[in-house]
């Protein structure tokens, strides 16, 4: 199996994509709501990724 080397950003983005798909599927009762919830989860993941990334960068000095 090939070895994968990813940056923090790439790994977190992959995590966000697949987690959002599953959260969207299991959370809502119709396809339209599932799609919207999945996209919203992905957006939250990305916003949190940038927010925490900047917080660590600025907090580190």
């Amino acid at each position, binding site marked *: *199996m*090939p*070895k*994968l*080397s*990813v940056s*923090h950003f790439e*790994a977190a983005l*992959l*995590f966000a994509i*697949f*987690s959002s*798909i*599953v*959260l969207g*599927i*299991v959370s809502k*009762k119709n396809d339209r709501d599932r799609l919207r919830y999945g996209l919203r989860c992905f957006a939250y993941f990305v916003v949190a990724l940038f927010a925490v990334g900047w917080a660590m960068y600025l907090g580190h000095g």
Partner: protein
Amino acid sequence: MANGSATSGAVALPRSWVPVVALAWLVPGGGHFLLKRYGRGGLLLLSVASMFLLGLMMRGPMFHPQGGDLLTVIIYYGGFLGDLASGLLYLLSVWLGYSQPDVAGHVHDYGAKFLVAAGLLNILAMVDAWEIATGKKN
């Protein structure tokens, strides 16, 4: 045991939720396939399997049950259960000899988290399949 015939949908459901949940554990999305929710089952299979395979490709170490202080027990037993929740993906990788030592590096670290997260997402899929099989959800 709950009966799976309580839904109003046109699709006939299995009489028991046990085989649904068991298949959902063994094969991510398998419970949905058994309930004829092919689209959702396919997406669950794609997501969980991709996450698990990415974890393997990042050479993430598997958790093994380990005693010690409370935090160690929670982390290692919890991690082991998370790995185990991936079903056949975990069992096959262990049976085929996957054994990655826990080494320093952010990629290995992410790999371990991807492996556990794949199992945790599969637990969500199992709960969803159980809800459909028992008629709590369509």
